[in-house]
């Protein structure tokens, strides 16, 4: 593979004043069987920003997210969030997996899924009371799904399922949100509902990191980008880093002309 160096950081003076990091990965390598899925990734994610992780299929975007959360064994690497080791930071992190990663035929109602987000508060033996139900319902209304609270999850559309996942993350009351392809296969109404919620979280000072595949919406949705193709290509603000040369380098191919040169 091509040897690439993080160019963005050295190109613009503003990049030297690096923002405070919410999440830091150091030398992270993950391998499936023998082939490395991501190799020696060192990255800092800015606090209070919305960062898109972009890269071609097979670039290891989801893998990076999962390894960050300790869901996959890493060959090497260190994860720190909020200046703490991962295990101690996890209670402040909400994870939204890919919608397709679960069996939506599971016997549960929409409300039951959102209540899962309150697990840390209630504990393993905790009872679900009125307060928990009220909190879950409030999270559902933030994503416009309160009318569906008693609906069977298998009866939802893809976009509605994604909103339920987001409501479950909201219930966690986290300060850092890691989302894996939150806009994959959702309708336009859901996409705008999700981005509204994510931006309001950002405006409350929380940090958002999302694996994203639609390059056209990057400038409208995100503050920063991390370009990944098994190795880190670049990380920085959309204005400095979401540039044709760097994105083309990431994808290893010519790109549509919508990206600023």
């Amino acid at each position, binding site marked *: 593979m091509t040897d690439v160096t993080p160019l963005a950081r050295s190109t613009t003076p503003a990049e030297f004043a690096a923002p405070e990091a919410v999440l830091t990965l150091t030398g992270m390598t993950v391998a499936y069987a023998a082939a490395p899925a991501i190799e020696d990734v060192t990255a800092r994610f800015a606090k209070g920003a919305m960062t898109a992780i972009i890269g071609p299929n097979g670039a290891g975007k989801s893998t990076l997210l*999962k390894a960050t*959360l*300790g*869901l996959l064994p890493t060959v090497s690497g260190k994860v720190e969030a909020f200046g703490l080791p991962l295990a101690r930071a*996890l*209670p402040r*992190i*909400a*994870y939204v*997996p890919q919608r397709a*990663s*679960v*069996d939506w*035929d*599971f*016997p*549960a*109602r929409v409300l*039951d*899924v959102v209540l*899962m987000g309150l*697990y*840390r508060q*209630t504990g*393993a*033996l*905790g009872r679900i009371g009125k307060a928990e139900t009220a909190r879950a319902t409030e999270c559902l209304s933030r994503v416009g799904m309160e009318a569906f609270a008693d609906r*069977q999850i*298998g009866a939802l559309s893809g976009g509605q399922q994604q909103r339920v996942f987001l409501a*479950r993350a909201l219930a966690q009351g986290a300060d850092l949100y890691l989302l894996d392809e939150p806009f994959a296969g959702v309708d336009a109404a859901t996409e705008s509902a999700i981005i509204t919620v994510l931006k309001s979280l950002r405006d409350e000072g929380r940090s958002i990191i999302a694996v994203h595949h639609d390059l056209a919406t990057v400038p409208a949705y995100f503050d920063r980008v991390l370009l990944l193709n098994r190795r880190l290509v670049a990380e920085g603000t959309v204005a400095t880093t979401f540039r044709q040369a760097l994105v083309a380098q990431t994808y290893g191919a010519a790109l549509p002309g919508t990206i600023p040169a």
Partner: protein
Amino acid sequence: MDGSEFVPLTLPPMVIALLAALSCAGPGNFLILRRQAMLGDAMSHVVLPGIVAAFLLSGSASPPILLAGALAAAALSAALIEAIRRLGGTDPGAAMGITFTAMFAAGVLMLELSGAASVHLDVEHALYGNLEGLIWLDATGWASLLDIAALGGLPPELPALALVAGLILATLRIFHRPLAIATFDEGFATSLGIPTRLLSAGLVALTALAAVAAFSAVGSILTIAMLICPPATARLLTDDLGRQIRLSLGLAALAAVAGTVAAGYLPLFLGLSFTVSASGMIATVSGLGLALAATLSPRRHGHGQRG
């Protein structure tokens, strides 16, 4: 009915079948949701060599010793499945198939080659169970249920199974919430700090325990019916996990009681001069229930029974 025949001959097998059915149906709910029904089948087979080995080594057929042997065999098979999967690069289903048939075959061979066959264990009982043999000779009627001396003569399987059933159901009750979350969305559960691997291993252990419990009642082959049929039937009838589990326990109890009674009395009632196998009848009743639910359920799924 004065119970002079029912209490010593039919009641103990019925209660034992009931306890075995409850022990199996509980973990079975999570097995079908995790699409691991095959694991239940594997466990019901691998316990056989464990039970035989424990009997041969200790010379005793007391339930705790057989249980320890069975659990050791279950642990060994879990390790073997993992080893075959990793070292041989086979898929989990094939690794399971290789392991449990080999271990079951070893168990049958050990039974036949050793003296165990003549004492407490024989191949037929291991395969089809021995419910009818679990009788309570000290009982003379319903009054014996209050007679402490007579209660001492109950088949030892009964209190052992009561303990196992209580343990399994209490464990599932306590860990219901983390187990449900981990079953629905393992990655999310891990990010919540839920020890998902430990829970998976725990579910395997409970399944093994249930398989051992059922082994003495219905034998290896029909244990799978107790593990899967009631939960699969309940799954077709409700979309709420808690209700599904309660319903599966009710259906399991119903199949156990109806199966034992039908095996003992139905042929006589029909004017025939023999009885049929209680374990066979329980499995049949369970299967009929599943067929009925699959046909009539308002929430039939296109892909039918999962697992």
